[in-house]
């Protein structure tokens, strides 16, 4: 029995992963060298320092840990960290100044066709692309701070860029100053949760051809054009905040060709357009709050079978606008602060239907300059008569059960 125990102990000491330390006052001074020396399963521990080693390639399964945020500097020439092995863990580095090239897209940290990679607690600053996952699966990107200082779209890449991947988890990252904060293309079954994406030049989140994903509890604030979700099926958008996305082509949430999705419990505040829908179908928009937006929702006539229910529309300039007279979506049980009806049986539901589409929103849709006349007494009069006898706005564009009191969202 004892023998077996000793043999096991011997084996375990052989199998035990080594820790290779790198630092200015350690025997090994170069990260590249440490990676060459490391065997599969070893840990490379990098101490504080400024490392200018060009492109660092991790090509075996190791744990790559930085202590006190050692700086990996790409000197504006190289991709900083390339991960070309499964199961690599990268933690605690400060990755700065990746190169700039339009053909190769050099990154702060890039994963090449590998699975189970964990990128956690890093600081990425002033890179072309921040973190790039190319054709990966089961990767985790967590708690990273990604920032850049892009001035124009062409000169800067995305914060967290994911392409053709599956089952990713993008959790609690902070991204600012990139082109798109988070970019998803052909990424499936993935979760984006608790991220804060702000002041990016184009979109806070850019989402294309990515089915069966969920994004939950993220904050998208003050991005150039808000958030875009396009050409995708079965997306769940829950509890996110879309704030202060201002400009003509800026949307809290821009939906194009989306179907079978859920938009639940989000907050849209102070956007030029809260939600802009184009060609979307079978979406459930529920329990969201639209506050102080220019347009709460812009629903183009190409949308159908969407259900908008139990939302709060408060303090928006226009609650809803559309560009046609075809009504294929249903509104039910929303709270509209512009509702002027009554509730005789006191059941909390207004007795007369509400026309969320104001005459003036139709006029401005056709003739944007008319915005100049908004809130003029003349226009208010026209709006009132239109509410009573709809002639320009579609008369079946109604919420049959408008709520008398706002929902506690």
């Amino acid at each position, binding site marked *: 029995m004892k023998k077996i125990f000793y043999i096991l102990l011997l084996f375990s000491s052989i199998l035990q992963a080594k820790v290779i330390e790198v630092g200015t006052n350690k025997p090994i001074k170069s990260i590249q060298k440490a990676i060459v020396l490391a065997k599969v399963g070893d840990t490379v521990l990098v101490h504080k320092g400024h490392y200018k080693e060009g492109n660092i390639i991790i090509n075996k399964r190791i744990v790559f840990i930085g202590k006190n945020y050692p700086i990996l500097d790409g000197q504006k020439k190289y991709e900083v960290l390339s991960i070309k092995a499964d199961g690599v863990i990268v933690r605690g580095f400060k990755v700065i100044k990746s190169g700039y090239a339009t053909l190769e897209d050099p990154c702060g940290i890039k994963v090449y066709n590998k699975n189970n990679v964990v990128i956690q607690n890093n600081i990425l600053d002033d890179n072309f692309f921040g973190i790039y996952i190319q054709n990966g699966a089961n990767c985790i990107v967590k708690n990273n701070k990604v920032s850049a200082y892009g001035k124009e779209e062409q000169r800067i890449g995305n914060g967290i860029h994911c392409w053709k991947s599956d089952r990713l988890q993008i959790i609690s990252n902070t991204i600012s100053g990139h082109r798109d904060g988070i970019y998803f293309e052909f990424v499936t079954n993935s979760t984006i949760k608790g991220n804060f994406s702000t002041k990016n030049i184009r979109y806070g989140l850019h989402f294309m051809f990515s089915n069966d994903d969920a994004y939950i509890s993220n904050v998208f604030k003050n991005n150039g054009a808000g958030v875009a979700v396009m050409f995708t099926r079965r997306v769940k958008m829950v509890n996110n905040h879309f704030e202060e996305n201002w400009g003509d082509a800026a949307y809290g949430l821009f939906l194009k060709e989306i179907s079978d999705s859920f938009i639940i419990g989000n907050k849209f505040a102070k956007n030029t357009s809260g939600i802009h829908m184009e060609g979307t179908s079978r979406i459930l928009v529920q329990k969201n709050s639209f506050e102080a937006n220019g347009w709460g929702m812009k629903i183009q006539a190409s949308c159908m079978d969407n259900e908008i229910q139990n939302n709060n529309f408060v303090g928006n300039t226009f609650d809803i606008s559309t560009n046609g007279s075809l009504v294929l979506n249903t509104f039910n049980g929303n709270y509209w602060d512009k509702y002027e009806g009554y509730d005789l049986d006191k059941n909390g539901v207004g007795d007369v239907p509400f026309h969320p589409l104001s005459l003036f929103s139709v006029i401005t849709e056709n003739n944007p300059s008319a915005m100049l*006349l908004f809130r003029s007494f003349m226009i208010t009069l026209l709006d009132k008569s239109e509410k009573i006898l709809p002639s320009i706005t579609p008369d079946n564009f109604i919420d049959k059960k408008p709520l008398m009191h706002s929902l506690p969202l």
Partner: protein
Amino acid sequence: MNRIIKIIFLDILKNKIVLGYTLILALLSWSSFGLEDNSAKGLLTILNVILFTVPLVSILFATIYLYNSSEFIELLLSQPIKRKKIWLSLFLGLSLSMVAAFFIGAGIPLLINAPDSVGLMMVIVGCLISLVFVALAFLSSILTRDKAKGIGISIMSWLFFALLFDGLVLFLLFQFSDYPIEKAMVAVTAFSPIDLARIQILLQLDVSAMMGYTGAIFKDFFGTAIGLSVSFLLLCLWVIIPFWVSLEKFKNKDL
């Protein structure tokens, strides 16, 4: 001059109409802020008051007051006082009472319930609008000796600025919608003090919508420091020019 202003101011206070006006404004503002839990609706009510009620009351009251005090004016003229001084003190006395009425009635609830840029802008704009329409009242009352005609002119000018002008602009917008008229439209607003006032408030109140495409053009002009000062300057011109014209007429008028 100060004594004449004081006499007029006290006289206006005595006839209680302005007091009633203050009371009604206060009632409207406090109740509209009190009814809803968010201040947005209250702001809208006061916006309509500023764009509609304030001009009407200011112009009508000032016109009628001027006609009714023609004997008092004649009495003053028999004294060794310059005509300019008399007319100016009349204007200052009237506008002081109208502005005070607006400020106490609507301004204070505004500043208490919406102590931000929107509230402040509304107070300033409301006071300016009171001044503009008092000045217009001076112009319309000097144009004719006939009281009914004078009041008619003032009501017409209120109707024009409050309703017809926007109708005309809307008509123009649709007639010329194929042309890039956004910038011309900005210039057109200078011809109506109510529009100037409305757009300044709009830029504070509906800032999200104003960031849209055409909104942005307006915001680029009205929202900048230059645009802001230009539109305030224009509003001041709307006070100065009608009053100045009426003053010139009054100086040479054969009473």
